[in-house]
């Protein structure tokens, strides 16, 4: 209380001003007079008395100073004085100030924006209670697209009893439903979870309740917890939705609560339900079959348990499972289970990219700080005179350093303010970017941490800048003052430092450019990948008629009829050439994949049988999608339910199974443990054709093996139509979507896209990635170019007299031009060499992000070096031209 009051009084004292000073003078004067009067009374002469009084006062000026210090906050006042001084001196060189603030602003802005993403996506503690105790289990086998094959319920049971380091495990089965509503049907992605799911995840509802163990099993009502995001998107955050019944297919569930905002993993889901909603999930197959894997597992570490313990235990349990149930774990598949900290898994896909971006941003900051350091050095040389005068007036080294620091802090803080502003705009874009890599993108904020980061960066830069400027050692001021600031040449050390900074800028720019170049090449290569399809003229129309809540196999005939009606309706549209029906749209991965056996062909022991995607296709499908038939025949109307079982395989599978043989007429069959869990039979099928490869597993993946089966002969779980039209295909999308809505209102509305759009979407993250790194690279090059030009210009202006002498002695403008260019060229060349070397060494870390281009791609490196050399030479040219135009007569006279 007392200290607070005193502090307030002192703050008020800062503004006391002249009156307080007058009062103080009066008060001290009164004291002096009273004391003088006292001495007079004791018998001194008035003059002696006054002298004696003054003597005993201990100095009026010192007293006044002491009182003033007590009145205000002296340190604050001296800081304020420094600030005033700094502002004044910056106002005198506005060009310098603007360039520095802009440069630092860009550097700090880039870093702040990227750091906000790194923090939101990778570093921030999870919103889950004790989120660092959560682990995720991943079951993988060999083969493309089989990195996560999930678990079966019996497997989860084994882990639950055999791994005490895991306190408890929650089951989560990704599924999807068609949500019926007033505005039509939509597809919602859901997680079917065990009742302990939310307790284990450490997530709480913001409204209502979450599922509990009491919601497990049969005979309970179906309940539903909406994710925060879906609640806002679909129901506008209306709290009245809690308690409502939502209809999904033939069933409905009661909304019991809204979940707190949390990253959605492993899949982006809209809602969580208990298992009772799905007949399948409570069926014997799901519950008892070891090979029926459609459950994800999240577990919480027990008290005191470590991830390492959990790994050991899980590995032991898994090894036991494999020996006890060899049929469920074919050795050739190499089954393995990983125990991963949940937070790590969430950041898995974003990590490399983000750290790469962070490094790129850091490089930009290094370059901009180097530029500012150079500007400061040059300005320091010009200010030598001023500093000498200040030193002569009694400012010590420490004081001068403080002045510089204040000035640089001011600049850096203004830069940081600009940077935060830039970051504010950038974060919006970056969230959209990060969404493609991380379920935590919505946690990206410019929070206190991020602002603190920006502040720390700017303080660091200010400190660095304050110590690059040369100040004499204490005690050598005299020589400085004697020199009188005449040496405006800049000393050798300063020049060397400036040049070193330019070399560093060029080198770092080259590294950034190389990264940008490689990513851009990657993106171009990806866009040029042949999909094996007609992309522009083909529309894909996903239509789901199967009700996943009910396993109604009898409805299949009616569904097939409905697809046929849709097909005819679309075929009748003007401009439409062909319409096919199939299970899976082109460029989308199939949900079914089995091992394939060939009649009369044995695989070598230990050789894994080929694993092929299964897709169904109507006789028109391949033609409509533009997939070429390499051999044999297409499906025909006779490949009907009653007819012989036939199949078309793709080129990849043909190469794999029938090297040098004609596959037509051969017999193949599916042979997977999970086959009996699906409506697909293991019967022998005659191969009637070979189709071209398509890039369904991703543009950057090896083409996958595919078996096409006649649409009419197989049960339809998923379905859709491909519509081949002319170049006006995109214009038909609206019409076709309306047809689906009219004829199949129970099917959730899904976008009607051309194959080209799907392809484009899959390249988009890479494109953004390349664009971000490229813009950093561009920024770096521009800043570096300004840096070279600045240093050369400074060198030219410092050597005006020398150049004048040279020219008066007969050097031509051209010779001077070459001299300056040469000076810059040396810096450029060293920087280029270092940069290319650095990029060559560093490119390896990007390997995982590249496609179709080697990390040490010579073409990219040459192009990058040429770009940098070109821009650098251009930057040298400007000061060189100025040097060549120096008029010796004028400069010599001025000297």
């Amino acid at each position: 209380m007392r200290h607070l009051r005193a502090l307030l009084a002192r703050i008020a004292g800062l503004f006391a001003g002249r009156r307080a000073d007058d009062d103080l003078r009066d008060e001290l004067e009164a004291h002096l007079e009273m004391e003088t009067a006292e001495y007079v009374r004791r018998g001194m002469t008035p003059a002696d008395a006054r002298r004696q009084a003054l003597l005993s006062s201990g100095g009026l000026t010192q007293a006044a100073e002491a009182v003033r210090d007590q009145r205000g906050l002296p340190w604050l006042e001296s800081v304020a004085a420094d600030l005033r001084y700094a502002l004044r001196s910056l106002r005198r060189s506005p060009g310098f100030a603007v360039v520095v603030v802009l440069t630092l602003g860009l550097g700090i802005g880039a870093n702040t924006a990227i750091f906000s993403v790194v923090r939101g996506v990778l570093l921030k503690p999870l919103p889950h209670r004790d989120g660092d105790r959560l682990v995720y289990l991943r079951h993988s086998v060999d083969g493309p697209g089989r990195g996560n094959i999930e678990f079966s319920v019996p497997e989860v049971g084994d882990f639950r009893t055999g791994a005490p380091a895991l306190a408890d495990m929650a089951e989560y089965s990704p599924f999807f439903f068609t949500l019926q509503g007033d505005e039509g049907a939509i597809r919602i992605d859901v997680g079917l979870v065990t009742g302990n799911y939310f307790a284990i995840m450490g997530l709480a509802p913001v409204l209502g309740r979450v599922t509990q163990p009491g919601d497990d099993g049969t005979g309970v009502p179906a309940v539903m917890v909406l994710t925060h995001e879906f609640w806002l998107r679909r129901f506008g955050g209306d709290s009245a939705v809690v308690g409502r019944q939502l209809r999904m297919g033939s069933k409905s569930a009661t909304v019991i609560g809204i979940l707190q905002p949390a990253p959605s993993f492993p899949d982006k889901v809209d809602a969580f339900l208990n298992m009772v909603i799905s007949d399948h999930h409570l069926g014997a197959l799901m519950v008892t079959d070891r090979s029926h894997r459609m459950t994800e597992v999240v577990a919480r570490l027990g008290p005191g348990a470590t991830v390492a313990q959990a790994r050991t235990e899980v590995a032991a349990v898994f090894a036991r499972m494999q020996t006890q149930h060899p049929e469920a774990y074919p050795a050739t598949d190499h089954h393995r289970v990983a125990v991963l900290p949940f937070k790590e898994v969430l950041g898995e896909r974003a990590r490399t990219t983000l750290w790469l971006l962070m490094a790129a941003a850091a490089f930009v900051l290094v370059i901009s700080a180097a530029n500012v350091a150079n500007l400061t050095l040059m300005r320091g040389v010009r200010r030598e005179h001023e500093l000498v005068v200040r030193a002569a007036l009694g400012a010590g080294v420490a004081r001068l350093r403080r002045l510089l620091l204040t000035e640089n802090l001011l600049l850096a803080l203004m830069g940081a303010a600009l940077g935060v502003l830039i970051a504010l705009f950038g974060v919006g874009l970056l969230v959209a970017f990060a969404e493609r890599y991380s379920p935590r993108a919505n946690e990206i904020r410019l929070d206190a941490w991020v602002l603190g980061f920006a502040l720390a960066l700017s303080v660091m830069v200010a400190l660095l800048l304050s110590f690059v400027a040369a100040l004499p050692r204490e005690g050598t001021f005299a020589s400085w003052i004697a020199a009188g600031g005449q040496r405006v040449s800049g000393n050798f050390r300063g020049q060397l430092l400036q040049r070193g900074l330019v070399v560093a800028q060029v080198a770092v720019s080259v590294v950034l450019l190389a990264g940008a170049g490689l990513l851009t090449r990657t993106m171009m290569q990806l866009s040029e990948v042949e999909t094996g399809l007609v992309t522009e003229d083909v529309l894909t129309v996903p239509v789901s008629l199967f009700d996943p809540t009910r396993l109604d196999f009898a409805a299949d005939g009616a569904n097939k009829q409905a697809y046929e009606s849709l097909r005819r309706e679309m075929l009748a549209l003007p401009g439409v050439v062909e319409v096919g029906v199939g299970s899976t749209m082109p460029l989308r991965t199939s949900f079914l994949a089995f091992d394939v056996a060939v009649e009369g062909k044995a695989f070598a022991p230990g050789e894994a049988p080929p694993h092929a995607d299964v897709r169904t296709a109507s006789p028109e499908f391949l033609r409509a999608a533009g997939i070429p038939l390499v051999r044999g025949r297409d499906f025909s109307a006779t490949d009907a339910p009653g007819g012989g079982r036939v199949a078309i395989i793709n080129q990849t599978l043909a190469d794999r199974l029938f090297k040098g043989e004609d596959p037509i007429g051969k017999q193949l069959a599916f042979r997977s443990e999970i086959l009996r869990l699906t409506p697909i039979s293991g019967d022998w099928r005659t191969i009637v054709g070979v189709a071209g490869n398509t890039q369904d597993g991703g543009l950057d993946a090896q083409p996958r093996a595919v078996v096409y089966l006649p649409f009419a002969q197989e049960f339809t779980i998923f379905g859709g139509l491909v519509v081949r039209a002319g170049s006006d295909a995109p214009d038909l999308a609206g019409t076709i979507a309306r047809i689906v809505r009219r004829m199949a209102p129970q099917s959730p509305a899904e976008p009607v896209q051309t194959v080209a759009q799907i392809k484009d979407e899959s390249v988009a993250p890479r494109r953004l990635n390349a664009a971000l790194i490229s813009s950093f690279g561009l920024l770096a090059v521009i800043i570096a170019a300004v840096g070279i030009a600045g240093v050369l210009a400074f060198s030219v202006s410092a050597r005006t007299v020398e150049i004048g002498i040279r020219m008066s002695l007969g050097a031509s403008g051209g010779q001077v031009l070459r001299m300056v260019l040469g000076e810059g060229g040396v810096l450029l060349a060293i920087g280029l060499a270092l940069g290319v070397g650095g990029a060559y060494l560093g490119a390896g870390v990007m390997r995982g992000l590249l496609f179709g281009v080697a990390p040490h791609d010579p073409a990219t490196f040459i192009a990058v070096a040429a770009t940098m050399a070109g821009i650098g030479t251009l930057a040298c040219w400007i000061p060189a031209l100025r040097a060549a135009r120096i008029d010796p007569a004028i400069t010599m006279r001025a000297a």
Partner: protein
Amino acid sequence: MADKLDVKQGTLALMILRTLEVLGPLHGYGVARRIEETSSNRLKLNYGTLYPALLKLEQEGFVTGEWRQSENNRRAKYYALTAAGRRQLAREAREWHQTADLIAAFLAPRREAT
């Protein structure tokens, strides 16, 4: 002035407060004289010591200053003890007594061990 003691900031505040309590509102000169006299001139107060201390007490709310005519018709700033100042004085005096007793006990001539 080698024989004169310097005053420490903390003790000076106590002396000022006590002086104002005994003598009532008083100007800086009066306070200085009184302290010097009470110390039998062993203490010597600079302006540079006294006035910052008075200002500090004022800022802390223990004294208030007011401009008045002095006894010989000079304008002078008179300091008076506030209620908070009185409480502070009582508190500090008590603490001093305790400290003094304690130190005295420590410094007392050692008794013969029996």
